[in-house]
């Protein structure tokens, strides 16, 4: 399927992501920050679509925007936000912040300059009609072990959450 107006949409979604990301860290109200994060994640799923990865885009919407962010919002709303809104925003770790930001910027610049020569073996699957099937074949075939480890990790997290939240065993 031929792409439609790719540069325009890329810049649009990238701009939405950037604005959303900046809104996350600058809003005083934590609920507004969470909503801005949701906008960022939805724009990110659009970028996945543009990379011909519809499955990851769908999963991003279901899990991240529709599951994880809902839980974020639960916690934010149940905790009293009046106190946190009255607090002054502080930047006491600005040295470490600047070092980390510089390192990240250096990484981005390096990748941009080196360009495609970093990834010589890139495979760009243009056909998206069986993207889900290809992901499934790889996930349950070649990367089965990693899949199982990840699911074990999630199981440990669930058990930990239940144990911590129960009033009595």
């Amino acid at each position, binding site marked *: 399927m031929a792409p439609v107006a790719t540069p325009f949409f890329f810049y649009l979604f990238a701009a939405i992501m950037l604005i959303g990301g900046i809104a996350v860290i600058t809003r005083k109200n934590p609920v507004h920050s969470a909503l801005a994060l949701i906008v960022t994640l939805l724009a990110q799923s659009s970028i996945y679509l543009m990379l011909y990865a519809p499955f990851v885009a*769908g999963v991003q*919407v*279901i899990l991240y*925007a*529709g599951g994880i*962010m809902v839980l974020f919002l639960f916690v934010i709303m149940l905790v009293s936000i009046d106190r946190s809104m009255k607090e002054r925003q502080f930047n006491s770790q600005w040295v470490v912040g600047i070092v980390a930001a510089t390192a990240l910027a250096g990484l981005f610049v390096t990748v941009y300059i080196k360009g495609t020569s970093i990834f010589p073996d890139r495979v760009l699957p243009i056909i998206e009609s069986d*993207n*889900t099937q290809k992901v499934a074949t790889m996930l349950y075939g070649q990367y089965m072990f990693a899949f199982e480890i990840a699911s074990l990790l999630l199981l440990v997290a669930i058990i930990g959450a239940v144990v911590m939240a129960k009033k009595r065993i």
Partner: protein
Amino acid sequence: MGQIIQYIESYLKTKDLTPGAAGNMFWALVYILLIFGGLSVAVIAMNWLERKILAHMQVRLGPMRVGPHGLLQPIADAIKLLLKEDIMPTEADRFVFWTAPLIVVMAAFTVFIVVPFGPTHAVTDMNIGVLFMLGVSSLSVLGVVMAGWASNSHYPLIGALRSSAQMVSYEVAMGLAVVAAVLMTSLNAEGTGTLSMIGIVQAQQAQGIWFIFKFFPLGAIAFFIFAVSMVAETNRAPFDLAEAESELTAGFHTEYSGFRWSLFFLAEYSAMIAVSSIAVTLWLGGWLRPFPNLLSGPTWDLVFSLFPGITFLLLAAMCFFNAARMPKHPMFRIQTIGLAGFGMVLGLIGLVLLLPAVRVRVQDIFWFAAKVAGFMYLYIWYRGTFPRYRFDQLMHIGWKVLLPLGLAVLILTASVALLQQRLWHP
């Protein structure tokens, strides 16, 4: 100008692609407008049907005054809601209060892009059709949470959190049931299934069996799990604790009035139709007519293709019958004329649907809509019959009953499918 007409016509030449798949934006827009219009009419009809059917179950008549047999009642309600004062609580967060109903409505309406009314009658056919529908309908949870929080009041917040916890819990069970059905689509020669809605129905067509009957009773149990979860997902009886009036928590849309409230209401009915569409597509054969293999052949095709026209003619006959039964008092003259006119419109539609050229094209849409209408009737029936579940019992069912059942069905379906592959097609 000629280029535009050529563009429009080029889609009509491609026989078996949806407008989205064919890349034709004009027809995609036409289909979107058609679906939007049809959905709005369906929601209005659902409003009237719910009040009438619930009333008849409760040995009363329901709306009878506004228009003949209350047919204009939904329009009167809509006008009333539009004219109501738009109240916003003073301490409420204005932006969030304003966007919450928008998110719910957008999530409820966007899912209809992939709903297939026929093999080419969808706006587009995504590779991830079912995943897209589940994902976008899970975004409505965000709208509910935002609505409860933005009201800046204790009870709507608790109601919203409960509603959203309920919706999230039942999404898990829904997902497992959906996976069990998608598993059945992979029982073909290539060994790969599909998540695309049109592909799922075509898989049922190819395998010659609706998935509700496949590997009986596994398909039926998966369908049952989905049918229960979808009622809980849309916050309808018997799982409507969060919006019941006789409970302490007042529900997330308490502070909303007028048009904003009607948006929630619109979104609720659209979400009901959306999840019913998923159920119909996955288990009940989508747009396929009953018994496509058992009663095949041109005569049976003809018989079944007459159903849409005959249904509308029956509805028209009911209208005329009731118009004849109306009191002969001059005050009822307008209502009688109105009902007879409505009956004539329905009769005309029925006659049009009997034309051969129209019959063939409309069949698929009719069967799909009829099956979804069956689900809508079930929704109303549940509301009239069942008491309400308490919230902890609700969560118990979602996590401790439906989730293990879904897992068991999934494992059993996979095992039976594997056995079938090995034993019958080694």
